[in-house]
């Protein structure tokens, strides 16, 4: 088995390449995805190898990207659309929410839109405004869309292929500040044997409290767990991976053992994924809880200027502070 050490960005690139190789109906489309290879180089080299009919540089209009991809999907293609940055997805919001999400439902199952919408999301790269947002709740709230996010190179490689192979329309969120983090990737493992797309996974086992995180915050949660262990406290970290549908099976099992739960995400707390997760855990694990489910999130402000984003983003200390509070209840 060929295991290589790749960055998340390279792993995603390898996964996209594999998808293009395996299915001639897969097309990649977006702004600058061709010659440039995307502003983050996730599609680097793909147009050169697969041609400009498979890897399409589109005009600069997000609604157009998604809307034309709907037509391509009706025609039988499997479009993989890149939205350049999280904050630029909103011009396409109508097409995603009113068209992509509802075609299968409206047609009583006769029309499938097997589309993947890749969005580099989240902060931490010192960007100007509109380049650091976490829009997952908008899409997770929309019936008909599935929403997933990867946290490490292996998942990036497998999950992007699984998402493209799925007939469900999937918003695929890529934690942009983790693009350069490396990890082992099994390049030759059959996709059928990969960990399921719509399933959470325990990223680090523990016994004292449960930390639920996804995307860029999984790394933060794992760092917090390492720090907590030095103080003699074992945190269990669950990487949620799938945000719609949520898979909280592992979370319920964990919280019933630990009695304490902290949910972490970069997006603002108000009506964020953490709110839904806290409600469900409270319903399911009520008699096991030693404290309320706590949330560590971005604040309910617009994403702030880059020089203060380190204070906005949940970090190791804020996670540990919340864990401490679950013990002080």
């Amino acid at each position, binding site marked *: 088995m060929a295991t290589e050490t790749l960055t998340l960005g390279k792993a995603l690139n390898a996964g996209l390449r594999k998808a293009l190789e395996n299915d001639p109906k897969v097309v990649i489309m977006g702004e600058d995805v061709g010659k440039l290879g995307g502003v983050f180089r996730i599609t680097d080299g793909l147009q050169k190898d697969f041609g400009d009919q498979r890897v399409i540089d589109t005009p600069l209009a997000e609604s157009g990207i998604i*809307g034309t991809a709907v*037509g*391509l999907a009706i025609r039988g*293609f499997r479009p993989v659309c890149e939205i350049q940055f999280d904050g630029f997805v909103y011009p396409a919001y109508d097409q995603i929410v009113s068209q992509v999400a509802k075609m299968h439902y409206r047609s009583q199952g006769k029309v*499938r839109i097997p589309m993947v919408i890749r969005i580099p999301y989240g902060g931490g790269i010192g960007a100007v405004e509109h380049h650091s947002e976490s829009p997952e709740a908008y899409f997770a709230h929309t019936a008909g869309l599935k929403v997933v996010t990867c946290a490490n190179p292996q998942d990036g490689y497998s999950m992007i292929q699984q998402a493209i192979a799925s007939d469900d329309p999937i918003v695929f969120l890529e934690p942009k500040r983790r693009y350069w983090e490396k990890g082992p990737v099994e390049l030759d493992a059959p996709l059928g044997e990969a960990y399921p797309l719509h399933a959470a996974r325990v990223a680090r086992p523990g016994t004292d409290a449960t930390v639920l995180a996804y995307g860029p915050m999984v790394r933060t949660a794992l760092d917090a767990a390492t720090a907590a262990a030095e103080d003699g406290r074992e945190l269990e970290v669950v990487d949620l991976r799938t945000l719609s549908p949520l898979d909280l099976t592992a979370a319920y099992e964990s919280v019933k053992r630990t009695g304490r739960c902290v949910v972490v995400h970069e997006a603002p707390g108000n009506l964020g994924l953490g709110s839904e997760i806290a409600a469900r855990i409270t319903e399911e694990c009520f008699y096991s809880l030693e404290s309320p489910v706590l949330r560590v999130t971005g604040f309910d402000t617009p994403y702030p200027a880059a020089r203060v984003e380190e204070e906005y983003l949940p970090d190791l200390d804020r996670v540990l502070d919340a864990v401490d509070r679950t013990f002080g209840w």
Partner: protein
Amino acid sequence: MAKGDPGAATRSKRAAPRTKRAAATGEPELVQLLTPEGERIESALGPDGTEYRVDFTDEEYRGLYRDLVLVRKLDAEATALQRQGELGLWASLLGQEAAQVGSGRALRTQDMAFPTYREHGVLYCRGIDPIMPLGLFRGVDQGGWDPNEFKFNMYTIVIGAQTLHATGYAMGVAMDGKTGSDEGEAVIAYFGDGATSQGDVNESFVWASVFNAPLVFFCQNNQYAISEPLERQTRVPLYQRAGGFGFPGVRVDGNDVLASYAVTRHALDNARHGQGPSLIEAYTYRMGAHTTSDDPTRYRIASEVEAWQAKDPIARMKAFLTKQQIVDDSFFAEVDEQARAESVHLRERVLAMPDPEPVTMFDHVYPNGSPELDEQRAQFTKYLESFEGSAH
């Protein structure tokens, strides 16, 4: 309708074809082959010098008339059904029959159409049972069918959204190598004058142009976007917008079924041969309300409606058939009887549409399903069952 291609437009230049010029008539410049009085015009020039003409057999003329009458009658039946509480809403095509029948009959079997929610006439010309969209308006379903089975996409209610779908589909046609011959595929996108202000429509113009998509943009300019007149959407004639995007545009008399056919057939054939997109502005008038929820007397005057009444698409076709002695009175009676019978049949089937079972609202949200939804459905089913045996 036409087997083979007797009605194809030709590009050959002939002596002194007519165009209606704004200066001469007070009318906007448009392609017309049948006057409101039912006089045939041999051929007409488009703004780029294209000459449009049709050469139908008598039987084909009769077929077009039959289509016009049938789609108007079925539409009137749907309006009546709404008034009687059997449909929640209806968007009438009254006045736009010629634009829809002309363009609909211009489509070849392999062509694909992307309608708004008012293209009942195009749907009929595609050979689709007119009952199909009524589930949406009765509220028993969301109006779904398989676009590829009928070569006719689902109705789209969000204004202009379907033009991007049509563009993507047309890009796919080209990517599949299905252009460049008589057997090539072309795509038509329907929208209205109000939609031309939408970003999606303008984006679809950009996309279709730069990718040279085999696509005809068919704008039925019926003069109103609900209450807002054309002047609120544009300062230039809509067909002239095409020039800025890099493809040809033409304005056709949308109440003239012959010209609508000729112009659309020409544009579709150009598209299927790989010559890219074009824009047709079918200049027409919405004789009825925007939908059954609308009251047009609040925003337009009776004399305007009367002026358009004089340009009625069916009356001019009837006058033409009569003057040319293509038909006799028994033909008109026979068509009216067919229309009556089909509308009765439609009514009976609408009334027989069953309400869906409540739990079916959980069906088809995702091709691969969702455990969360499965759980909600199970809970809801159990909840409903808790009422079984109790008095409602």
